[in-house]
């Protein structure tokens, strides 16, 4: 009993320390001007400010702005500019001047019809679009320094926006009565991420305190040191797997919070909860964090824990490389997110299409690239480890065709990852060098080709989405078969389907680029091949269904998640069939239909699969049973709210709601006669989605609570609580270290697993030589 307590304490403290460590902030750089997201001038004219335009703010009587204001007083401002193309006073010119004024404090009020307040900022109206000077009132705040930042456009008046138009900006600081320095206003992103950091630290301290109260003795350095050393240096596959779980769950939370922020922003049209910059960074990092830092570590966690146990190996073949694959991940994560703390997070989309990735002024994009380079290295090492382990360390009697399906799925998945990820790595390094030493791989001026990146990215990216979903297939195969107390139906066709999916992924990647301007011939080829994916996937779904036939299905939490997976994955698979048809893709491309589709596959597929895996292998990993009651609650709320989030997105996408927009246009007011804007009910659907998204997010906290609570107070688990057949159920729960005292031998219930049927030749290659196997595999 004492031993278990120490373990619990150790595990909980590592959670705390990792929370703190992962959120270590390398840089804080609050921006003194933090008054607007618009940093690069007016959106519709040339990119850089021009010194020919001189902007100024004075008082209306002509005198300069006072250095100190009187609290609460109202000042009449004269906003003006001179210089630039607007100077040429040709009467035929239209819309020659405009401005935008933001005040960090106080209130700006228009006093005539030439100015107006838009989104909190003062700007000109249609009527005031030809002027070079405007009047407005500014009411001073009661305290603190105020910054007034003015941007003016000097336009050539040809009524089309072009780079001949010039603009400039100027800022004034008006101090409060005390004349103190301008206050530093932090960026919203900094606030959010510092908030997460702070919460994590407080959480860690609280946890530490709880455990201190429980067992003060465990808090001596003498006991802490070996404990922390163990976690930092361990190469045991189980410890590394646990580390993966901790970091994966943490980043699942971070990605979830980002998603919630995105959903709040989209809950109503024209919302200004987030600035454009923040929104763009959030959806970029939501994608990257969820794929690379949540889904893949969680899969790696299960792979680490379960694969050696399933194939009857004591550990992975290269334990130190395995530890390194893990430790590259948090380091990569810190790099990847480090731009966020200075409000300069990567804002390029998780696909990082060029040339915006090479030219965005958010330097977080450089770190985002660097962080992903480390993740690529990590995945490569993982790939080597698992491929070699599965290829060379299977227990006697376990030919390729006797491997449990989860192991098969991990093999196919790492194989795909391993073959494709160097391509992505090279693309990243090219982009990283573009952003640092100014190579020109994606610089169109030097002949660079943005499509090269798209190709390199999707050559990796498409296998990658299968990489995260294929392990879920493996989990579901195990769960469905075990829950139904049946053998999986069509083991062989399951394996060939997996391998088929893995291979086809490399040919069809171009369907992400059907509208990208790549060679039409290649587009044509991928149109025809993409639909092929449906065949192996269909085989798997029908096999799962057939597995239940004649069985006795026990409804446990993991069974429910597996059935939920079948529902959502089938829907996601069907909606996927709409994209390869080019004539449909040109409408659906980059709409919420795509968003709905890949969330149905990635959340309804991968994440549901991972949930099922959590409930299924939790007793094996911790030696404790999980609470079924909470699990079912989690499933019910999660499944329903999940569908509430993503099902309406199909409709929104069909109506033409485009993704990655921080706002959207409703057919009302001035847009009421424009066909193609969204009908008014789209706003209501978006609000509904947001509400459901919060429910889904919160429902997952139930699982987190369940994991922690069951770990502390759950009932003891037997070695084989569900009745599975593979080796992991043979060892005790939790397994000892090393995992097997002696390597077991797999027996075979099939009297003749002789080659024959469809695949005699493949079979011969894939079964052990008769000489080797003869005595040991014994029937």
């Amino acid at each position, binding site marked *: 009993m004492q031993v278990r307590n120490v373990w619990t304490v150790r595990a909980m403290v590592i959670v705390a320390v990792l929370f703190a460590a992962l959120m270590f902030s390398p840089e804080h750089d609050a921006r003194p001007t933090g008054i607007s997201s618009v940093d*690069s001038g007016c959106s519709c004219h040339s990119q850089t400010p021009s010194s020919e335009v001189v902007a100024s703010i004075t008082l209306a009587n002509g005198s300069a702005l006072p250095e100190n204001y009187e609290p609460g007083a109202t000042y009449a401002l004269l906003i003006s500019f001179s210089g630039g193309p607007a100077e040429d006073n040709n009467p035929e010119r239209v819309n020659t001047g405009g401005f935008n004024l933001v005040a960090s404090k106080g209130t700006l009020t228009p006093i005539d019809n030439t100015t107006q307040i838009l989104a909190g900022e003062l700007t000109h109206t249609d009527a005031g679009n030809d002027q070079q000077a405007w009047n407005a009132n500014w009411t001073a705040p009661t305290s603190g320094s105020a910054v007034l930042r003015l941007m003016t456009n000097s336009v050539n008046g040809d009524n089309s926006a072009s780079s001949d138009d010039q603009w400039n900006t100027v800022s004034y600081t008006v101090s409060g009565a005390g004349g103190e320095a301008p206050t530093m206003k932090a960026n919203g992103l900094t606030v959010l991420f510092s908030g997460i950091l702070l919460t994590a630290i407080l959480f860690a301290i609280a946890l530490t305190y709880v455990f201190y109260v429980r067992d003060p003795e465990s808090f001596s350095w003498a006991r802490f040191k070996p404990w922390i*050393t*163990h976690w930092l*240096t361990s*190469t045991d596959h189980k410890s590394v797997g646990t580390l993966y779980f901790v970091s994966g769950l943490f980043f699942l939370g971070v990605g979830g919070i980002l998603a919630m922020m995105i959903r709040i922003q989209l809950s109503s049209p024209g919302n200004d909860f987030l600035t454009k910059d923040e929104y763009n960074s959030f959806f970029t990092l939501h994608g990257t964090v969820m794929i690379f830092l949540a889904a893949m570590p969680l899969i790696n966690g299960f792979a680490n824990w379960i694969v050696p146990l399933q194939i009857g*190996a004591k*550990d*992975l*073949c*290269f*334990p*130190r490389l395995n*530890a*390194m694959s*893990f*430790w*590259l991940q948090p*380091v990569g994560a810190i*790099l990847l997110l*480090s731009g966020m703390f200075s409000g300069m997070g990567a804002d390029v989309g998780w696909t990082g299409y060029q040339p915006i990735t090479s030219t965005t*002024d958010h*330097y977080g994009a450089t*770190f985002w690239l*660097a962080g992903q380079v480390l993740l690529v290295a990590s995945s490569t090492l993982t*790939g*080597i480890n698992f491929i070699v382990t599965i*290829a*060379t*360390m*299977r227990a*006697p*009697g376990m*030919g390729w065709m006797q491997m449990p399906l989860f192991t098969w799925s991990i093999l196919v998945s790492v194989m795909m990852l391993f073959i*494709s990820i*160097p*391509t992505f790595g*090279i*693309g990243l*390094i*090219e982009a*990283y060098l573009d*952003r*640092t*030493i*100014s*190579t*020109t*791989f994606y*610089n169109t*001026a*030097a*002949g660079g*080709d943005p499509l090269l990146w798209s190709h*390199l990215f999707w050559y990796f990216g498409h296998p990658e989405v299968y990489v995260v979903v294929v392990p879920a297939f493996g989990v579901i195969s195990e769960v469905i078969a075990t829950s139904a107390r049946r053998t999986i139906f069509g083991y062989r066709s399951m394996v060939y389907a997996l391998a088929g999916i893995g291979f086809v992924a490399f040919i069809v990647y171009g369907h992400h680029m059907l509208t990208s301007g790549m060679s039409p011939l290649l587009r044509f080829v991928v149109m025809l091949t993409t639909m092929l994916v449906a065949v192996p996937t269909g085989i798997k779904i029908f096999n799962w269904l057939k597995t239940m036939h004649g069985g006795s299905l026990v409804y446990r939490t993991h069974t429910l998640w597996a059935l939920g997976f079948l529902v959502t994955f089938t829907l996601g698979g069907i909606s996927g069939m709409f994209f390869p048809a080019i004539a449909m893709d040109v409408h659906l491309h980059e709409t919420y239909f795509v968003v709905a589709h890949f969330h149905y596959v990635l959340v309804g597929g991968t994440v549901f699969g991972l949930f099922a895996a959590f409930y299924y292998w939790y007793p094996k990993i911790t030696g404790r049973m999980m609470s079924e009651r909470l699990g079912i609650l989690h499933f019910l709320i999660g499944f329903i709210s999940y569908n509430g989030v993503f099902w309406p997105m199909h409709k929104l996408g069909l109506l033409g709601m485009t993704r990655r927009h921080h706002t959207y246009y409703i057919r009302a007011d001035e847009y009421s006669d424009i066909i193609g804007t969204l009908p008014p009910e789209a706003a209501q659907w978006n609000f509904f989605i947001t509400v459901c998204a919060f429910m889904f997010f919160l429902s997952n906290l139930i699982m987190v609570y369940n994991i922690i609570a069951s770990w502390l107070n759950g009932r003891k688990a037997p070695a084989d609580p569900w009745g599975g057949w593979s080796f992991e159920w043979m060892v005790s729960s939790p397994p000892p*270290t*090393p995992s097997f005292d002696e*390597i077991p031998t797999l027996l075979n219930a099939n009297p003749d697993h002789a080659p024959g049927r469809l695949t005699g030749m493949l079979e011969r290659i894939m079964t*052990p030589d008769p000489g*080797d196997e003869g005595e*040991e595999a014994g029937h």
Partner: protein
Amino acid sequence: MSDDHGYHHGPHDWSHGAPHNSWAPIVISIGSGVFLFFFAKAFTMNEGMNGYIYDSAPLPLAIAGLAIIFAGLISWWKQDFSFDGSYEPQATHGSAPFSNVDIRKVGMWVFLMSEMMIFSSLFSTYIRYRTSIVSCYSLEGTVVEPGTACWLPASYFIAKGGEHANSTLGFMPDALVPGAINTFALIISSYTIVMALKTAKRTDLEHAERSIKVRNYLGATFCLATLFLVMKMVEWFIGFHIGPFEAPSLLSDQFTIHNDAYTYNYGHGAEAGAMTVDIRMAASAFYLTTGTHGVHVFAGIVGLGYMVVKAHKGGYGPGNAVSIEYFGLYWHFVDLAWVAVFPAFYLY
């Protein structure tokens, strides 16, 4: 094979009391992160948002990152130093078709698979740009707008050399000398490393004598690899003037990734002409591909350094000679990559 070799998993097997905890992974990871972070910090985008400004301040920290990586490697090696091959893990009987193959050998080959993909990606980049960007040669005789992007391959600077077209040897331009030496250096080093393997496997020699020979072969490989990198630096940055041989470096020939206004002179006599062209893409592809190869050579040098030290201390014998073979596989692969890189970038 007997069971003695069947079920030992990993060079640091649980049941042999070898260390199974290691600081190396976390240290190397942190080092990589520090390096990439501060390397990126050294460059910021300029205000025009069309280029990057270099700031040397964070660079020492980037180098510190490399030092951390190296410290991690040393801690890794310390654990491996005593490995004498007595429990070289082998694939289990169940794992046909790999039954009884050394696991580390399979691992090395699987690693080489990813290396193949890395170089294939680089070559895809190269082929794509080589086929889509117009060659500067084909623009000869036409009037082009200054700053037009076109492809002026490295081989132009190396083989034709513009006004430096001097050939002391008569049959080979001087500027090709470093590249040619490198090609021979890599092939010879491939040979010396298999000789090291062959020698380490010999049982007809005394251990001390064998160790000296192995060390010498590995040392020769080390020297040739270093020669390779030195020659590459000569070719990139330094240039040379030794006796009758004289060749400018690519840098002084203005073959750089920033050169968007290279004056390309062509033809002789009446056909002579000049144009200002943007050759940044050719330079980028050249430096990235040969640079990636160079990084692989550097990694090989680091590994060879460890092996020379271990061989000097008598660490290699018939029992663990395969370790040399596995490093050799990597080293031959680097050679193979050069076999592809050399014609594509230096000759064509």
